[in-house]
């Protein structure tokens, strides 16, 4: 299965455009930002692969690394009973990435959550609002430079 996925992706995106790694028999694929939509479309639409479910979208804040954030999509194929992780590195200067909510509907709220917690903007997302934090909140709590107990006074209490 892994070879099939990798071969199809290389065939579509070109050689040396993807990196991959394995951990405990799980495959992760590191994509370039501009290839994410193409790769996602291929994975979902290909009759053999059929990755028909997006299980989670999240991000990692590396704080001091050059490309500060990694965005991770967990996708699953019911046909092959196979889970795959798609990763994309993005830089703080340009915190935007194509939304996959048009490909996997379930990604919509996961992307909202990622936006809420990390401040990453998903281009052409239908409804990019905060999920957990109040709408008027100004910070992104899961970033490494956000203090554990929050910014005093940023969340109002009654009275």
């Amino acid at each position, binding site marked *: 299965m892994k070879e099939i996925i990798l071969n199809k992706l290389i065939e579509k995106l070109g050689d040396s455009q993807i990196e991959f790694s394995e951990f405990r028999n799980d495959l992760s694929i590191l994509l370039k930002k501009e290839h994410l939509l193409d790769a996602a479309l291929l994975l979902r639409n290909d009759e053999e692969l059929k990755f028909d479910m997006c299980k989670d979208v999240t991000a990692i804040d590396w704080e001091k690394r050059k490309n500060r954030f990694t965005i991770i999509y967990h996708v699953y194929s019911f046909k092959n009973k196979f889970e795959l992780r798609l990763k994309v590195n993005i830089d703080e200067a340009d915190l935007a990435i194509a939304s996959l909510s048009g490909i996997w509907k379930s990604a919509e709220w996961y992307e909202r959550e990622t936006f809420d917690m990390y401040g990453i903007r998903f281009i052409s997302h239908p409804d990019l609002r905060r999920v957990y934090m*109040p709408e008027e909140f100004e910070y992104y*709590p899961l970033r490494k430079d956000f203090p554990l107990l*929050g910014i005093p006074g940023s969340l109002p*209490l*009654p009275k």
Partner: protein
Amino acid sequence: MGLEAALTKDGFITTTIDALIAWARKSSVWPMPMGISCCAIEMIAAADPKYDISRFGSEVMRFSPRQSDLMIVAGTVTYKMAHVVRRIYDQMPDPKWVIAMGACTSTGGMYRSYSVVQGIDQFLPVDIYTAGCPPRPENLLNALMAIQEKISKTKARDFQNKARSGAGKI
């Protein structure tokens, strides 16, 4: 015990209005079960036949704040939820009391985090804090008894001009 004996003997008793009203109040404290998370399960257990909160006259859990005297805040209160809790509290008629049930409501508990209020006394006048994570039903009953103790020391005129500011004396 004392009351029945007195009534069967002479058919009347002498007391003060304050004592009578306080006795009536403390014997039917209707709780508003503000069950927000896991503490609510222990609060429900306190109402079951084994622990039986009705022994203390508090079995009437009112899901309307307008009919209740005691708010049992059972669970983690986030900053977002704090506004809801306060709003429900404000709808309860005076006199009213508050139990902060468990570590989360008392201090934030294990949720030392940006999203959780580190103690509901930041926005509510708490009368009794209950330790435990979650507290056992006995512990909640103990808190209820402490509330009754507190009520029995009140005077009717304490509540005349409303404005019961903060947690009063016990």
